[in-house]
């Protein structure tokens, strides 16, 4: 079974600075999808970024980018120019090639200081 591990329960960043959230996963599949979701206190889960494992190029969405290391099974999220609105719980998630069952990590709370 696939597992997703987020080893940082909580992270803090100063406004306008850069922060990196870590995620590792375990799978025997060769093709799959990886996601970062953001969950603010309102509980609405919002997709931040998506990476397809067969694509070598790291995904980027405005201030959000990933460092995808397939061999190391690592998928970290970098947030540049952090804003107060980035404060939330961030979940890393895995979805296999043949199913659509998202497996989530335990989450990382991101606090942004002004």
């Amino acid at each position, binding site marked *: 079974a696939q597992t997703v591990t987020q080893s940082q329960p909580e992270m803090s960043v100063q406004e306008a600075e850069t922060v990196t959230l870590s995620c590792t996963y375990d799978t025997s599949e060769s093709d799959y999808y990886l996601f970062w979701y953001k969950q603010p206190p309102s*509980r*609405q889960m919002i*997709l931040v970024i998506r990476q397809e494992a067969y694509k070598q190029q790291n995904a980027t969405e405005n201030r959000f980018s990933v460092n995808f290391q397939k061999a190391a099974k690592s998928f970290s999220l970098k947030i540049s120019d952090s804003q107060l609105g980035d404060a939330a719980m961030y*979940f890393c998630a895995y979805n296999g090639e043949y199913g*659509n*069952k*998202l497996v*989530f990590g335990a989450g990382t709370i991101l606090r942004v200081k002004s």
Partner: protein
Amino acid sequence: EAGVAQSPRYKIIEKRQSVAFWCNPISGHATLYWYQQILGQGPKLLIQFQNNGVVDDSQLPKDRFSAERLKGVDSTLKIQPAKLEDSAVYLCASSLELLAVQFFGPGTRLTVL
């Protein structure tokens, strides 16, 4: 485009009572999911529907939980009888098709006393 709708947003019940949650997915989305998110944990899939058929319910506690998706549109999740450990946020999500990106609703926070 309207997002995934869920109701109620909050529910407090006594143990052994029953409760039902409702979800209306994004229009045209064939796949619907129910997740359970216990405080401090990531969401866990309970059941997945493709149109009105069940694709995966391997983690649904079938002795007390049931779900249906009549006519392949909206869905209800029921718990009967509730236990203290069922206290959690119940999230509904939908996607256009299998392997497509999932969009989540705001969730229902259930407290079982």
